[in-house]
């Protein structure tokens, strides 16, 4: 049986009458990348900070490595690494000095060079933090979080504000950390990120947890139908109608058929390939974005705001 690294039950955090986190429950297992996904103000950071022992819960249970976040703060902090949202550090210290500072706080004396090399920071170890680009700063944040050799790493919106190239590079770094056996708790509002990185994910909106599961479970459960889109072949409508009733003509005369199961998709594709080779066939799989739309009834824009 896989070990539970994080256990959250009926966790609630209130500020006055406002519930930032409202009776949420989920588990995180050793070695996985778990994503808490939701728009701005959903309660992601509050949840993460409770687990990091930076906030006290109003009620409910939150355990990290079986330790209570309220009573075992010191023990938990020794086992976790944290990259806060909009990460920052002493900006006039160098990369090496910043990472070394955290290593000393954890009492770790070895592995600095290896840590910096793994994150591609060894060549710029003597550069001041303030002189680095946004993506490199986040990598320094991860290096600092890894300096204490943690078993669990919290990444709070690690790629927010980064350009696509830097974001993808950071994803690679996160994947490599998983391969090292580090359990990763990630918060994000990017659905693409959830799909690219997560083993499992929970959707949280306005403090309430809507659903939890593996990405494929969530997609197959809430993602909706698979679509076949055919361009430049009117006869495709007749072919597709043999396998599904849901066929319509979309923009620019595209023939679109929606399928509730994969078997019919495969049959339809075989038949469509027998048509003349002039048509273009696309299969559109449902995504986490469709899951979110279906579950929450809205979308999250690039800046993280919920659009109903």
């Amino acid at each position: 049986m896989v070990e539970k690294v994080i256990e959250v039950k009926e966790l609630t955090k209130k500020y006055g009458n406002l519930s930032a986190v409202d009776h949420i429950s989920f588990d995180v297992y050793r070695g996985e990348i778990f994503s808490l996904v939701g728009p701005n103000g959903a309660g992601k950071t509050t949840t993460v900070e409770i687990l990091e022992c930076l906030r006290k819960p109003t009620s409910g249970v939150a355990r990290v490595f079986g330790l209570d976040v309220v009573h075992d703060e010191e023990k938990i902090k020794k086992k976790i690494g944290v990259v806060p949202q909009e990460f920052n550090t002493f900006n006039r210290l160098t990369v090496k000095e910043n990472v070394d500072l955290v290593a000393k706080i954890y009492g770790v004396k070895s592995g600095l060079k290896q840590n910096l090399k793994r994150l591609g920071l060894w060549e710029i170890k003597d550069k001041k933090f303030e002189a680095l680009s946004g993506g490199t700063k986040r990598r320094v944040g991860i290096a600092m979080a890894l300096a204490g050799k943690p078993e669990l790493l919290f990444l709070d919106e690690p790629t927010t504000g980064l350009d696509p190239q830097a974001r993808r590079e950071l994803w690679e770094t996160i994947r490599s950390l998983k391969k090292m056996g580090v359990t990763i708790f990630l918060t994000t509002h990017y659905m693409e990120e959830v799909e690219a990185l997560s083993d499992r994910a929970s959707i949280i909106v306005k403090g309430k947890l809507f659903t939890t599961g593996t990405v494929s479970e969530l997609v197959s459960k809430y993602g909706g139908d698979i679509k076949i889109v055919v361009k430049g072949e009117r006869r495709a409508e007749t072919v597709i109608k043999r396998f599904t009733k849901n066929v319509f003509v979309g923009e620019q005369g595209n023939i679109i058929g929606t399928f509730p199961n994969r078997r019919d998709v495969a049959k339809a594709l075989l038949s469509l390939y027998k048509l003349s080779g002039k048509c273009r066939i696309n299969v559109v799989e449902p995504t986490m974005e469709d899951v979110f739309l279906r579950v929450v009834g809205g979308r999250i824009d690039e800046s993280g705001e919920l659009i109903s």
Partner: protein
Amino acid sequence: MKHSFCIFSALAKHWFRSKTGVFFSFMFPAMLLLIFGTVFGGAGAQTYTLHVQNLDLVDGEPTELSSALINILDSTGTFKIENLPADVDIADYVREHPSFTDYRILVIPENFQQKAMDKSIYVRAGVILDTLSFVVENYGYTMTENQVGSIENGMDVLKMWRENMGSENAEILLLTDEGDTAAPIVRGVISSVINAFNNEMIGVEAVVSVSENQLTQRSFKAVDYYLPGYIAAFIMTNGIIGVTSNISEFRRNGVIKRLAATPLQKSSWIIGNLAHQVLLAFMLMLAMIALGWLIFGVQAIPGPYALLLIFMGTVVFCSIGMVLGGIFKDVEAASAAGNAIAFPMMFLSGAFWPVEMMPDFMQGVARCMPLYYFHDGLRQIMIYQNPTQALVPFAILGVLAAVFVYLAIKITKWKEL
């Protein structure tokens, strides 16, 4: 302790790499010391500019006596003599040469030498007549009638001759600006010179004289007073303004949250900050004293008591900064609060001028401020070499340090940031 040292080391490196931080913590106080030390008599004795218009000329040249008077005034070292030409109209000159310093103009009139000589002879003759009259009245019985008659005849001749002599004073004129606070000093020095001049003219020998002896082994200058005040004031501003804005900035940009998520304890963070400020304070003290020694020859001697008092003062003001940084979440509000406390304290506590110069009420206000005890204690220890006089400052700063460190620990947030 190990963690505190890590924070101390990080903060020190972070600070030393800030040009503005170094400037405001070291260069700014040094510049102020140089400026104030020079302006208020650190480098030499106070002098006053005295314009002199000599109208007592013969064939266009100053008379011997008027020149002698000017030379005596010059030799006092109190005045910087500026000669005004005899043909200049003083009112026009002052109008055409506006100045931010007050004008003090001494006018030596025409015939000054002649009048002074005539009056001195007149006075000397009077003294002779008074003396002869005293001798005849009190010692006439020791003389023959002929001797007494001869003296009285001579006195009659001298009286007649004296009545024909001029008895008008040789009056010099001192012109000063209204509201010139230094005018009494200038007037006093000139009067002393004139008295001595008068005595010399009539041949009076000194009856009463003043002898001088040094009261203490060391002599102090104005800059000796200012130096401990500056050191204390800038340690105070580094603590209250510097620490307040640093703490609120570190909190705003997430550095504190980053550290709070590690096993670092809140107390280690606070101790690290205090240690960093103590290092800065010691460095500031050494820099200021070195500057004072080199430029102004100050008497300040740093010793273990001074270091202990500086340690205590730094802990007080750094803790106040941490309390403010903990109370005000907004960086701008925290800086404004720091300024609102530090600047009035800097000017009202007597750090920059003696408290005795202030009205009674303000002296009471000054004595309510921790900075007063800090600079007063430093002055007693470093300048007067009298640590026993610093017991009250030690006691007060010790109590305040305990109170504000306690408050800093209570108010600094390590959760719910």
